[in-house]
């Protein structure tokens, strides 16, 4: 089975390539890249990428697929449907399912569900502690053997510093990073939004920035002690970025990700008690948003990850302090990132690096590259097409996006996993190749 993806602009940061190229794909593997028209004589299925960027498939290293246990919010199938519609060919999903993914059996179950869905690749992230209770180490070796690519208690900060130390030491044996949700629970107790002028005015108990920063500082210190790999999940404050920057300058194995909502929105979005603007960590101030962009620009922040956290409307249509934390993000991440390109934060190639190359490297996955011989995981997107966010049109089972009604620029046209088309934009359908 042969395919040619032609007339597109290939952006492949891993190979420092940014040029008009056609791709020849055979048996799901990238066989050759050539100048436009190179494969005109080859008998193959043709995909017209004119006007599109052809990038290595996007990789979201932080999503909640909710299965097993919370299938009313999302399943591996609906989550990967949303993923491929958003241009993602691979996901790493967090362990806060029910039962918790703290052993090999649950890890294998998720891998199996993803195989059955047959859309995006899914890499489970194993729990750090049994039951996410923050007390005893989970069966990390067993989960890694079953396919876990990272370890995290995401959603629950690891308050016991000694447990975190042991986990970092233990994980170094498998060379998997620990993704850390940085929140000091004593400092954040009872808070539902950023602690600042808005929380004071709205009368909502706040989560201070320092709740994140003390934990980032702690985990960087533990990375120094153990030489373990710490990945700071969804960084949200200016000083947290500064701490990561410093740790990198010191040569520690510390990486960081930021979620699109944290580089796009401020706490002002909470105005009117909008529960779709409630997430953990909370939306911060304009200074912090600027710091996220600066961190992306100078490399302090390695990756953009959605923290896609689907919730049922019944969990959001409640009093603000009762509402569930989290927003969906798989279908809006790419256009929100492209906005940073248009705003001059970084170039398109850097955007692809944050959305594909770096997540692959951090998780040790062989993707994020269009090198010959690698699996043909591709995302084709139009950087100019605009569309309006309609939560009801989302492929996700949940609609809790803070970007409802936004007009976004940048649209995924086609997503391919191992040479299989797993998503094609309906607007494009029927368009002659």
């Amino acid at each position: 089975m042969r395919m040619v993806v032609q007339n597109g602009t290939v952006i492949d940061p891993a190979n420092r390539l940014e040029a008009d190229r056609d791709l020849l794909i055979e048996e799901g593997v990238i066989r050759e890249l050539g100048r436009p028209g190179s494969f005109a004589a080859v008998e193959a299925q043709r995909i017209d990428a004119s006007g599109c960027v052809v990038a290595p498939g996007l990789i979201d290293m932080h999503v909640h697929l909710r299965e097993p246990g919370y299938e009313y919010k999302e399943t591996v199938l609906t989550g990967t449907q949303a993923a491929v519609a958003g241009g993602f060919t691979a996901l790493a999903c967090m362990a806060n399912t029910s039962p918790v993914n703290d052993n090999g059996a649950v890890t294998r179950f998720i891998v199996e569900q993803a195989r059955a869905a047959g859309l995006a690749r899914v890499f489970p992230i194993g729990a750090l502690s049994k039951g996410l209770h923050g007390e005893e180490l989970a069966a990390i070796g067993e989960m890694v053997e079953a396919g876990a690519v990272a370890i995290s208690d995401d959603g629950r900060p690891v308050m016991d510093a000694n447990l975190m130390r042991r986990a970092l030491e233990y994980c170094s044996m498998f060379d998997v990073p620990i993704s850390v949700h940085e929140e000091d629970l004593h400092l954040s107790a009872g808070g539902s939004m950023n602690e600042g002028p808005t929380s004071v005015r709205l009368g909502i108990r706040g989560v201070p920035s320092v709740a994140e920063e003390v934990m980032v500082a702690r985990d960087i210190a533990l990375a120094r002690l153990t030489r373990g790999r710490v990945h700071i999940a969804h960084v949200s404050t200016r000083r947290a970025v500064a701490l990561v920057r410093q740790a990198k300058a010191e040569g520690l194995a510390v990486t960081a990700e930021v979620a699109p909502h944290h580089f796009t929105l401020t706490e002002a979005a909470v105005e009117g008690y909008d529960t779709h603007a409630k997430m953990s960590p909370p939306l911060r101030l304009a200074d912090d948003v600027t710091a996220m962009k600066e961190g992306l620009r100078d490399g302090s922040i390695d990756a953009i990850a959605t923290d896609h956290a689907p919730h049922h409307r019944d969990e959001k249509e409640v009093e603000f302090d009762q509402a569930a934390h989290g927003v969906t993000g798989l279908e809006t991440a790419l256009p929100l990132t492209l906005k940073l390109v248009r705003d001059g934060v970084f170039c398109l190639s850097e955007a692809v690096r944050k959305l594909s190359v770096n997540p692959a490297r951090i998780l040790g996955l062989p993707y994020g590259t269009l090198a010959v011989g690698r699996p043909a995981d591709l995302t084709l997107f139009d950087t100019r097409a605009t569309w309006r966010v309609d939560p009801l049109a989302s492929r996700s089972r949940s609609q809790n996006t803070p970007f409802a009604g936004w007009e976004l620029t940048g649209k995924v046209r086609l997503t391919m996993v191992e040479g299989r088309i797993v998503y094609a934009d309906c607007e494009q359908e029927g368009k002659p190749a």
Partner: protein
Amino acid sequence: MTFSQRHFLGIEGLSRDELLFVLHTAESFREISEREVKKVPTLRGKTIINLFYESSTRTRSSFEIAAKRLSADAINISASTSSVNKGETLLDTARNLCAMRPAALVIRHPASGAPHLLARLDQCPVINAGDGAHEHPTQALLDVMTIREHLGDVAGKSIAIVGDILHSRVARSNILALTTLGAQVRLIGPPTLLPLECSRWGVERHTNLRAGLAGVDAIMMLRLQRERQMRNFFPSLDEYARGFCLTVEALKEAKPNVIILHPGPMNRGVEIDSRVADGPYSVILEQVTNGVAVRMAVLYLLTTQERLATQEQSVTNGQAVGQERTDRQTQPGAWAERPQPGQEKGPSRQPEPFLLPERAVGQ
């Protein structure tokens, strides 16, 4: 060569020659255990006190038998049966015992450094039978002795130590002994139990069992204390075994004539598979036999060179030693011992009749 140490507190500080001297002495004592009458009169009339603050049938009985084969009187005191539980301090207990004039005090204690505290009393030779996570020097000697029986000189040999290095006094003493004697030591275990600082000891550090075992001449398995799981050094015994249990398959990485040591008691199915423990490579029972010989050697060397120390002391008495005592007495509550009348040893006793082969004493 003479063995000039007053106490036997650890392998640390012993030279290669001193280690070899003790080993040669032990090797010559081994023969006594093969005799029909397993007894020599070397330490007749002397008392050895075994003061055990941790239960250890194996080490305690080994010291007891060693003392008895040298015709010494061995007294065992264990923490559970003595005044230890009645609030008496370690030093007070030791002072009382020393007042009974033992030839040596053997101590096993859960606190690292406890034997060193007693050694500072300096009322009789102190032998460390295991202190906390610090050292277990006689265990290291019996391990080395066993390796030497099988492999000859340990210099240049590759020896793996597998398991809980962090908490193991057996590992510490063996690392010191083996590296001093020129062996190449590899430490293998989960990173939680294998401190990064190990690399400073001139050893290799491995977190993969098979990689670590590649081509080794001897494997020393440490006992895994099950309660470590509670403190998150590993998720479960099952997962520990998955990574670090010495199985027949893992053993294939080592040299074909590899030997396996274990200080006992074994956790079968956790750190060692029964097929390996009971297999032809295991020298665990020889270790027990050699343990008696090593302890005989240490008791012999410390108690018979005591007179040398006494002579030296009489030379320096009233000088440095006296000065030190004065200083201590000026500090209220200082732990310094009071000079005790009659403590000084009587004029030189005659050497005991030696029943040792020439090479042991003649070096």
